[in-house]
């Protein structure tokens, strides 16, 4: 399974259940980079200060909240650290409700909860209890410094955690007037017939993202025709002529310089990840 995005424990009365959280959904949207059309270089985002007319490094930045037009209150890292986050590594169960009581509009993101080492038993206990009672548990969890409302529900052998919007994050129904028109019995019958014709079980496999598929085909076709824009060889990594590039690497090495500082800096992180993969 993918890497856990969070680990902690469920606290449920006197029982704590160590668990790991995994994302249950992923967006498959194709991402694009913004290029400069004249040279094909990937554009860089800059933090630009219009007053000083200069690029601003990260260490000269702060977060400001605009409380009135053009008026900011500045919050520092220390300010953020002072904020209370009670449920830091725990999922605190506070109530048990029937799933049908939660309107789908509240659901934000879905996660899988898996028991951590030696937690299979209490995990199974909570799972079975919820399943047999046909209930879901309302709880709070802190993910990425944000405390969130969530609900735990048993689903096909696994506990799902769904983060919920807080009620004040749900917009009120639009203030358009929906007039109650009169419908005749015959019209209703016709509507029923139509509905019955298309009535079938929900099978998500029947639906797919046609737009993405078309986009992928388009990209494939462009690659096939070698309609590929190549960024210019601004730096050593971006090379078109292999011999030239290799010559540069060797020369740099001979001079005693590291041929690619970036490559050696990166060394530790990939090496650690590599261990999770097979050794070739």
């Amino acid at each position, binding site marked *: 399974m993918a890497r856990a995005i969070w680990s902690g424990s469920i606290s449920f009365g006197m029982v704590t259940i160590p668990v790991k959280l995994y994302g249950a959904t992923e967006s498959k949207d194709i991402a694009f980079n913004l290029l400069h059309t004249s040279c094909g270089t990937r554009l860089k985002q800059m933090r630009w200060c219009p007053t000083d007319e200069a690029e601003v490094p990260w260490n000269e930045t702060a977060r400001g909240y605009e409380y009135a037009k053009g008026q900011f209150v500045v919050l520092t890292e220390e300010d953020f650290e002072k904020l209370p986050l009670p449920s830091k590594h725990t999922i605190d169960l506070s109530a048990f409700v029937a799933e049908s009581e939660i309107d789908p509009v509240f659901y934000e993101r879905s996660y899988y909860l898996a028991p951590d080492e030696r937690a299979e038993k209490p995990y199974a206990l909570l799972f079975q209890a919820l399943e047999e009672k046909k209930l879901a548990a309302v709880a709070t969890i802190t993910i990425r410094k944000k405390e969130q409302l969530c609900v735990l529900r048993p689903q096909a052998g696994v506990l799902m955690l769904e983060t919920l919007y807080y009620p004040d994050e749900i917009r009120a129904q639009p203030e358009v007037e929906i007039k109650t028109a009169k419908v005749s019995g015959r019209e209703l019958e016709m509507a029923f017939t139509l509905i019955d014709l298309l009535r079938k079980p929900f099978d998500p496999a029947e639906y797919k993202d046609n737009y993405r598929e078309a986009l992928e085909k388009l990209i494939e076709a462009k690659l096939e025709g070698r309609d590929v824009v190549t960024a210019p060889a601004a730096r050593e990594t971006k090379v078109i002529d292999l011999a030239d590039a290799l010559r540069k690497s060797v020369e740099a090495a001979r001079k005693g310089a590291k041929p690619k500082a970036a*490559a050696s800096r990166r060394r530790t992180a990939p090496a650690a990840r590599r261990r999770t993969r097979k050794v070739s």
Partner: protein
Amino acid sequence: MRETVRRVIEQLDSVSPRLTLEVDGHELPVTNLDKELWPAAGRRKPLTKRDLLRYFARVSPWMLPHLADRPLFVTRFPNGIGGKSFFQKHWDPVPPFVRTVSIYSRAGDTDGDYIICENVATLLWLGQMAGLELHAWYSRTERAPDALGRGKRFTGSEAALDKSVLNYPDFVVFDLDPYLYSGKEARGAEPELHRRAFQRTRALALRVREQLARLGLETWVKTSGRTGLHLYLPIVRDLDFDAARGIAETIGQHALREHPREVTVEWAVERRKGKIFFDYNQNSRGKSLAVPYSPRQHAAGTVSTPVGWDEIESVYPTDFTLRTVPDRLERDGDPWAGILESKQDLGAILEAGSAG
């Protein structure tokens, strides 16, 4: 050597599950000889520890030269390839016939003893411990003939090791690892070996070889013993690991540019899907690919096997197993014999290329 091998094989022919092998005057107790390290599958018979020891003995004349003077670590499978495995780098104690070398390790900020496998007895000792997968450094402890000025102090600090001959690899290596799924894999499992994936990997290897040949560089190839191919570029030892990795990265990025539909250099495994992972990151001190003739964790008992470019079109990874490789070596010899005599002076070759 051949006489040593013959005598070991004779002793292993005994039906006893435990023996004390006499190898070149050394005594080596071996146990659990009938333990199945590769279980039976379909019509395939199991391979036991006895089979592994026989294999190591028979291939030793061709395998040992590839291990000479190189710090070694192994992956042990005490309960066979289906069981738990673990890496082992440091050993204590070792039998008297095993050579060790003390090397500084940044991880513990201390020196640790590595073993060097330079005789049949050491190879069999590793086999006794179910050390199936052998990984040796790309650099050697000895300076002759192409690294005469380099240091021989490997202990005490990172700086000493950086200056030593162990920081100068004999090869730039590439691991071509297809992430082309057969469709039969379990969710999240590694891709399995299948014909189409291997054909594409082979085609890519041939193109990389051709590209480097145009620059006057000769590449050597072996099967990984699993799904992919390993490419080695033997070089004169005047470039350190950082330089080798820079060169490997340049070649990898070039391959990506040339074959964007075939090649990936992505770290995230899920992004490699459908492409061949061109892994140039193995060019680091202390990292290693499986050595030539190392068995691999594969149900068929496959072995990472050097092949000639003239035969690559007609071979398939499962052709080379513990059962077949000894005969192949006895019949045709080692296609990689002399790889260290074929070292290339990258700098000189590239300069010559630019002049002409």
